[in-house]
């Protein structure tokens, strides 16, 4: 009986290695600076993580389906710039759906190329990274975009508003996470995504078309990017063209940190959420500790490697192994 429950605990730990790592960071940073766990700070970290987080939720679908998406950073710049520009031209009520349509169209294009034409997703989205950057610059003429009348608009609620004391970006992030979490874990479509990512050919022969499901994944990813762009635009009410530059790697890091396999077929929305929070809290924690920033780059890397190692070690039940 005792043995049984010990095994059970072992299995639970094995599945939650990343959460244990997360808890360890939280304790460590709290000891270093008492303000780390203050409600004010936790809310501020979650609010700034929301933008990266929403994007990571979408990319989780793409990664689980066995593909990559490196275009999300420049796509986020695109949607931010577009919605800011349209805000002053056609008003927020029209600007938001227009921006969503344009961003999702870009995602659909990638989905077509990767899904139906079966092109390598790394090549397609790496190319799209610069193509969309160029598109954004062409659209804006290189100028920073700013909303002219920052007071006379309700557009700021998505980034700056609060709902019952909780910043709206966090509410959006959690709502999207709940929705996508259920979609991936509890619906036939979600199971198809796992099947396609696990073995695309086998899935197709079993009546689960790889192409169509991959296409949907990129559309979901683009929709998430549009939401992130909306939060970003509303948070700062103005933006430079490079606002999302480099985010694609942070997003991917969060997804992988959450335990999704780059080879596809595994990963969950909940663990991506943890991955996002780990990245957000590391950044904030290092700032609060007041480490010199040259050191921060190195420490961030060390912490991520440590987290991944803890996760793997928990899964295989020992800290060191010569076989995979």
């Amino acid at each position: 009986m005792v043995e049984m429950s010990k095994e059970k605990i072992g299995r639970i730990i094995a599945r939650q290695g990343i959460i244990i790592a997360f808890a360890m960071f939280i304790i460590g940073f709290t000891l270093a600076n008492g303000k780390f766990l203050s409600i004010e700070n936790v809310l501020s970290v979650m609010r700034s993580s929301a933008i990266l987080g929403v994007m990571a939720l979408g990319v989780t679908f793409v990664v689980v389906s066995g593909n990559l998406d490196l275009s999300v950073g420049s796509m986020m710049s695109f949607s931010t710039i577009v919605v800011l520009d349209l805000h002053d031209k056609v008003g927020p009520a029209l600007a938001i759906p227009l921006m969503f349509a344009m961003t999702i169209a870009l995602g659909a294009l990638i989905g077509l190329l990767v899904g139906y034409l079966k092109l390598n997703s790394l090549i397609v989205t790496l190319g799209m990274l610069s193509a969309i950057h160029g598109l954004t610059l062409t659209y804006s003429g290189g100028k920073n975009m700013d909303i002219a009348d920052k007071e006379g608009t309700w557009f700021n609620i998505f980034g700056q508003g609060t709902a019952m004391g909780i910043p709206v970006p966090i509410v959006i992030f959690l709502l999207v996470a709940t929705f996508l979490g259920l979609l991936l874990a509890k619906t036939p479509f979600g199971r198809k995504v796992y099947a396609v990512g696990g073995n695309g050919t086998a899935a197709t022969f079993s009546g689960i078309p790889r192409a169509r499901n991959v296409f949907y994944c990129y559309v979901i990813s683009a929709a998430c990017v549009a939401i992130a762009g909306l939060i970003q635009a509303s948070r700062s009410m103005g933006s430079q063209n490079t606002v999302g530059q480099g985010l694609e790697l942070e997003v991917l890091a969060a997804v992988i940190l959450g335990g999704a396999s780059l080879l596809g077929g595994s990963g969950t929305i909940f663990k991506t959420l943890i991955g996002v929070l780990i990245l957000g809290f590391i950044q904030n924690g290092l700032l609060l500790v007041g480490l010199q920033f040259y050191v921060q780059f190195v420490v961030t890397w060390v912490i991520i490697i440590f987290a991944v190692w803890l996760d793997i070690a928990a899964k295989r039940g020992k800290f060191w192994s010569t076989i995979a």
Partner: protein
Amino acid sequence: MKYRIKAALACTVAVFGTAAAAETMTVGITQNNVGVDSYQTTYEQAFIAAAEANSDVEVVVLDAGGDVARQIAQMEDLIQQEVDAIIIWPTNGEAVIPAVRKAFQASIPVVVTNSNIAQAGFEFVSSFSGPDNITQGSRSAEIMCERFTALGTQNEARVVQISGQPGYTTAIERAKGFEDRLPEVCPNVTLVETQPGDWNREKSQQVMEAFLVKYDDIDGVYAGDDNMGVGALNAANAAGRTDGITFVGATNFAVGYEAMARGEYWGSIYQSPVDDAEAALKTAMDLLAGEELPFLNYFDTPKITQDNMGNYTKPVF
């Protein structure tokens, strides 16, 4: 954009220069990355406008798109075309040195504009034209100190700094100017912490949020440019702590100017891309006219605060 394509076409067929009249000079420019931000976009437009206004000069306007290899190729093209002078806005202070040396060996004077190349290349450069970022940093320190003195907090004020991208010359020089000057003018003001905002408004906002959690008492924020300064201001606004904080930036942006007009942002450094572009062309023309120029030609970047902002027009970027 259209002009650039025309210029690029013209340069491939080498129409300019040789065919031009005896007194007309041909100046080629290879820029860093037009279109990536409003400053560089405005710079290019102002450069072309200045060249059109001057009948003594023909210009070949090129842009490297942030790519070092392309910039080196463009330098070689300009040398091949035997332009009279080359202006370069370096994509990278180190990597362009061999190309600059080539021009030097071909006896074509090179003017470096906006941000200088590395010291190892100075012997091949005729002149540098651009802003003096160290002076900008010290002027920001003076603006901040003058404001503290006016508020009577010069003996206790605590300041945080949000610097530009680590490793960038402009970021390093502005930070150095500020850090050296502040203790000279306001010896009792403490600079409590410096963190980079990477020239990015969102990043700067996150850094400021952490500062606000960490420090209960912040009297001043110095940001390496107004874009980051406005990010910090947004964070303070969201936390309801804008009152009592003096925000000072550099490179006055339109958003910074507007925040100054609203009374939330105290001051900045007025750096006009139009002055920058005109100074570069003038430096090249003066060199060709045989004038003796100092190696470093700085154009003036004055202080702008809520008190004197009426004397300056709102920046276009």
